């Protein structure tokens, strides 16, 4: 019995950091409507700075002072980020906001390694809380008790701040209607900045308070942000009480999940999250939102099928690509295959995102499941390659069917957070379930059959599949299904009014996109000869998003160009620098701020401008970001 009580208290103590970070995220979202993906990064920087400060400053005062100064310092960094970056994208579609803050996260991951090195850092114990308390023969660290008391205290302070101060009243008013607040003479800019500072302070404090419990390392940002997303999905985004209750719930589920399913404890959290989503899609304490701003609409060109000339041009491009083996070496062909596979992956996400308006931040899950599907079939069942290629993607299909069912219950930022959380769950299973997946060591020796073994044959295979997939998805855009899907994207309510079952259309699209991604993953397994958890990791999901974004979200097939350019750049970049995440993150931020319409969108815009010589300052073209609202 005592053991369970202690386990319960451990869970409560873990909830403290989770609550701090989640409440910060919620507060920021409430006012700015931005889901700050970089919140995990601020948490991590808070921990690193606190580590350094508490090492340097001695004594009790040095320790606690170091923690608070670290959180304040990170809040200042947050203010700079808000003023330099976020102010430019408050009116951008939410997809761009998510991506820009994600780009920041990537940059921070490389920066902390650059500054603090790649090794785990073990911090000082908290003065006055070094010991443990005996509870019927079980030990409870006294620092845990401190954290357990801290959460409700912070909750109370936040409550007072929001209910009893003018700032709090303004923040609550802005959460409902920020334009009206401005129309009453309040400077929104500073209100937003101050809210962002408070939210970041809470995240950094959460990170700083973690150091006596856990080592500081450069992957702690993703771990916390995924848990925080789960917390806000369960508790309701924007609700501080919800963040508190859900943080406790998730922490307890983790604490006891370990006892029930030691290998895959995350399953329990997933089950609870799924249950909450079915009963209350907006979380336990959340409120249903008005339909959020969409992924960008068609502000450039209405979509149309290709003209016969364009078809010929595309065919010619394909033929030229097919001649690569005539003059290129093996390395170039392998790169070529990888690019072709990226095209498959990118068009599958593009289909979901641009046609369906559902921006998935965890699309790699289905790519990776396709790869694992092949590996299981080839290694365990020993099936021939052609059979594996046909059946392997079914694992991606099944994964998409299960997760997609829940994901399409939500939209906008919730959809993004949920898909990311699902992908992370799949990743954890692949990583933790060593007996089946090989864990970190992956599954090796997935080699293609002899007919596809030579680099040129494999290249032709990949190219052919990529072409088929692109054509098939494109045809689907202009099919009745495609029109129905676009209708659900453009107006969910109206589409339901004309008798479209929006959820089932979106679910179908999710499954199609997941299966297609699985096809890419299946080829990828054979290309590399192995499968690793990274094949369904977050960075791969982000790669896909960037490819789509780079090609242009608003185009029909921009993802093809985006994938080719991005993958080629990426392979080149990785060979050139160790700081590829820093460069990639900076690159994402740059695209979002400077080229929100992507390569193909830009080209179309230029072509259109030349054609019509549109009037100067034409409202559609003048302010690309604002008008996309």
């Amino acid at each position: 019995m005592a053991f369970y009580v202690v386990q319960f208290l451990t869970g409560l103590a873990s909830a403290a950091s989770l609550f701090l970070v989640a409440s910060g995220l919620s507060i920021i979202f409430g006012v700015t409507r931005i889901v700050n993906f970089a919140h995990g990064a601020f948490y991590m920087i808070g921990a690193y700075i606190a580590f350094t400060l508490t090492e340097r400053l001695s004594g009790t005062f040095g320790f606690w002072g170091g923690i608070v100064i670290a959180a304040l310092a990170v809040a200042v960094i947050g203010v700079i980020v808000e003023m330099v970056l976020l102010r430019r994208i408050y009116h951008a579609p939410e997809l761009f906001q998510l991506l820009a803050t994600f780009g920041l996260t990537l940059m921070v991951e490389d920066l902390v390694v650059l500054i603090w090195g790649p090794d785990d850092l073990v911090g000082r114990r908290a003065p006055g809380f070094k010991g443990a308390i005996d509870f019927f023969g079980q030990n409870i660290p006294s620092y845990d008790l401190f954290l357990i008391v801290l959460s409700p205290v912070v909750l109370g302070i936040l409550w007072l701040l929001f209910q009893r101060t003018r700032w709090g009243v303004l923040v609550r008013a802005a959460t409902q209607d920020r334009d009206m607040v401005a129309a009453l003479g309040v400077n929104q800019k500073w209100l937003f900045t101050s809210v962002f500072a408070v939210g970041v302070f809470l995240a950094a404090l959460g990170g700083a308070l973690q150091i006596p419990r856990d080592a500081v390392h450069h992957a702690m940002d993703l771990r916390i942000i995924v848990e925080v997303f789960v917390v806000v999905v369960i508790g309701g985004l924007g609700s501080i009480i919800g963040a508190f209750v859900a943080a406790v719930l998730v922490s307890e589920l983790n604490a006891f999940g370990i006892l029930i399913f030691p290998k895959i404890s995350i399953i329990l959290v997933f089950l609870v999250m799924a249950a909450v989503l079915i009963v209350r899609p907006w979380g336990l304490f959340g409120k249903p939102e008005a339909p959020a701003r969409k992924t960008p609409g068609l502000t450039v060109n209405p979509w149309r099928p290709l003209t016969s000339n364009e078809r010929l041009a595309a065919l010619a491009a394909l033929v030229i690509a097919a001649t690569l083996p005539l003059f290129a070496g093996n390395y170039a062909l392998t790169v070529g295959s990888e690019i072709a596979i990226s095209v498959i992956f990118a068009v599958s996400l593009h289909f979901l995102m641009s046609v369906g308006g559902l921006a998935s931040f965890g699309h790699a899950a289905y790519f990776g499941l396709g790869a694992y599907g092949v590996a299981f079939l080839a290694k365990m069942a020993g099936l021939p390659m052609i059979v594996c290629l046909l059946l392997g993607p079914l694992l991606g299909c099944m994964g998409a069917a299960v997760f997609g069912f829940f994901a399409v219950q939500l939209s906008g930022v919730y959809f993004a957070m949920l898909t990311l959380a699902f992908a992370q769950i799949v990743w954890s299973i692949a990583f933790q379930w060593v007996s089946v997946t090989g864990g970190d060591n992956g599954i090796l020796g997935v080699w293609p059959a002899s007919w596809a073994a030579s680099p040129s044959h494999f290249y032709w295979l990949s190219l052919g599949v990529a072409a088929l997939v692109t054509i098939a998805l494109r045809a689907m855009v202009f099919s009745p299904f495609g029109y129905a899907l676009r209708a659900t994207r453009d107006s969910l309510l109206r589409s339901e009014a004309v008798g479209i079952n929006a959820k089932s259309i979106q679910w179908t699209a999710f499954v199609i996109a997941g299966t297609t991604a699985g096809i890419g993953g299946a080829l990828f397994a054979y290309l590399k000869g192995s499968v690793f958890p990274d094949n369904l990791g977050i960075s791969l999901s982000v790669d896909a998003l960037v490819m789509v974004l780079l090609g242009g979200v608003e185009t029909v097939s921009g993802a093809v160009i985006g994938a080719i350019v991005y993958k080629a750049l990426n392979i080149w970049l990785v060979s050139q620098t160790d700081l590829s995440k820093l460069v990639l993150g900076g690159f994402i931020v740059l695209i979002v701020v400077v080229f929100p319409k992507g390569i193909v969108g830009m080209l179309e815009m230029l072509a259109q401008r030349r054609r019509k010589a549109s009037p100067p300052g034409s409202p559609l073209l003048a302010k690309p970001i604002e008008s996309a609202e």
Partner: protein
Amino acid sequence: MKLTVQDLNSHYGPAHILFDIGFEVGEGEVVALLGRNGAGKSTTFRSIVGLVAQRSGRIMFEGKDVSARPTHEIVRDGLGYVPEERRIFTDLTVEENLEVGRQPKRPNAPHWTRDKLFSLFPNLGEMKNRPGGRMSGGEQQMLTIARTLMGNPSLVLLDEPSEGLSPKIVEQMVEAILTMKKEGVSIVVSEQNLHFARLISDRAYIIERGRICFGGTMAELDARPDIRDAHLSL
């Protein structure tokens, strides 16, 4: 002149809504902006306070051109705006709603306090702690005006204050507007209801499909039944 609008043009996306709007409001005057549904009254107000991004023209408030300034600065200069949709903060209590509108005292404008507003709108005084979401339409209309007055404006743009209100509440509204006028607040009120406008206004402009097509005193308007019948539905 308190407020002078010249050559105001506004767009929503590709749609051109306002065409060369021009009008004037004198110190302490109540001016009505009359027009049918969709004529452009609300767009005119929103453009003046900078809530329509795409606008051009000159907006002189107390001798200064405010057309390039952000909304909150225009409002802080003393140009209050009461939106047609009321836009009460539904989760905030009456007192908190007023708090959001509070601005420092201004030398050239009447100073409003909570108590003064509660005597202007007695209903509000009886529900200080009620959330805005649980008030009737008429009470919300009073609150939205009171909230703007908390900013001590010297001019107020009132967008269709009588819309959807019972005759009894409309009477209270007339009283309140006349009190505001007596205190020295200049007012532009948009209306479809000519009878209501007549009770409070010194002069009127008529707007039709984004263009001003009449301007003059109430008496001059009454002398032109043709214009009245062509542009207003009574």
